[in-house]
């Protein structure tokens, strides 16, 4: 098995110089996985990755693994998986075949070669990248830049109309509370009971609820007050019916509600 220390890459943070063929197995921790080891072994063939002999590579790998096992070094499982796969590949490449398998062993070999190429390419790229002129090591930015400061200032904008309308809104918001207390005119329930009861007393026959309402003139023209009177009178009618002073009749849903005094209870 070939081992030429000069072929080892010199990587940042890694030093594999001085690795000897007979000490190769000791380096197991130095490889980043089986592919990395394969790549190193491939490079020992001293030919372009495209021209490496896969069989030779497989042999080198298997030998390496055997030696490591002979020394009872603990090998990570993926090294063994790779060994098994390579052994299979080797036998497939060597044995005569009757029919074309898919993929063919040659294809699998090419595929392995491609993976090695990819990894090799990235390894080389990394080295070239690290070798560039680097900021803070080879080239420098200005040591003491004054710095740029932008002081943000707001210029506030508001239109006259917005201002005036805002005031209107405030007023509108605050007014109704006052407004409604003052102007809310209602017929109270007590008033309605007294009024309906007294009118029932003089009524001869059924009267419609609406007829109990005050005539619509003066302040009673207010629809709100009329609504209040209607509602209160309705409740008054129910109250009088409950206490047995009146009876109610309605022929159909939403039809006119009529009431009259119950006989014998008239005052």
């Amino acid at each position, binding site marked *: 098995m070939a081992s030429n220390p000069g072929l080892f890459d010199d990587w940042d943070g890694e030093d594999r110089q001085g690795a000897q063929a007979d000490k190769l197995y000791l380096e197991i921790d130095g490889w980043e996985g089986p592919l990395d080891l394969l790549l190193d072994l491939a490079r020992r063939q001293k030919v372009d990755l495209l021209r490496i002999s896969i069989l030779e590579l497989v042999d080198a790998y298997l030998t390496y693994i055997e030696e490591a096992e002979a020394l009872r070094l603990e090998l990570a499982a993926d090294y063994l998986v790779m060994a098994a796969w390579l052994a299979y590949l080797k036998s497939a490449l060597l044995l005569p075949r009757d029919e074309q398998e898919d993929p063919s062993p040659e294809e699998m070999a090419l595929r392995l070669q491609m993976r090695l190429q990819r990894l090799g390419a990235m390894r080389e790229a990394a080295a070239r990248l690290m070798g560039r002129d680097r900021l803070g090591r080879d080239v420098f930015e200005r040591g003491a830049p004054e710095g740029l400061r932008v002081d943000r*200032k707001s210029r506030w904008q508001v239109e006259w109309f917005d*201002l005036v309308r805002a005031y209107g809104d405030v007023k509108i918001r605050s007014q109704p509370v006052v407004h409604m207390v003052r102007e809310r005119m209602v017929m109270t329930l007590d008033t309605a009971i007294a009024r309906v009861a007294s009118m029932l007393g003089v009524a001869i026959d059924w009267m419609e609820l609406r007829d109990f309402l005050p005539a619509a003139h003066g302040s009673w023209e207010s629809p709100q007050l009329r609504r209040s009177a209607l509602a209160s009178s309705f409740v008054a009618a129910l109250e009088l019916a409950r206490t047995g002073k009146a009876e109610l009749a309605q022929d159909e849903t939403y039809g006119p509600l009529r009431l009259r005094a119950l006989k014998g209870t008239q005052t």
Partner: protein
Amino acid sequence: MTQDVQNAPDDVLRAVEATLFASTEPLTADQVALHLGFGEKGGEVRPALADLQRHYERRGIHLVERGGRWHFETAPDLAHLLRREKEDVRRLSRAATEVLAIVAYHEPVSRAEIEAIRGVQTAKGTLDVLMEAGWVRVAGRREVPGRPVIYATTPAFLDHFGLGSLKELPGIDELRAAGLLDPVDEDMIETALGSKNPRIPDNADSEDD
């Protein structure tokens, strides 16, 4: 005049230029020379320093010497570029507009009064914005318990709105006429709610018309 220097600066000049550029502090000629491995005496770099100073004197940055130490700095006439003021036009928020209107209509007015009129708590920040805008100022303190700060508008406020005086703000009656104060009165509620008006009698819900 110094064209050869400008067009083909020699290596010493370039090295001095780069050294001063990258240095985090002003350097003496000796320090520059030492740094560049020209020995401990600055003699060799002095001509370069002079050339550089001449080269930069009409540019956006100058090479200046203070107390024997050299450094690059922004040309004095461009110093204003280092600190720029940027103005953002921003619309006043609704809350701030309301507070401004209240100050204008009721000034001088305390924060508690503003809150009473708005019916909402007013964040301190709102008044700050109005003061930052230059439209509202602190107009002293009211001589009542707690001596609250009172606020009033500024001349800038009148300017901004093109007003001769606060009297030119539309009165309540005008606001009403303009429909801006349209009362949320009973009739309006009536119209808005249709025939039903749940507010008035307690049991209007059961009403049957």
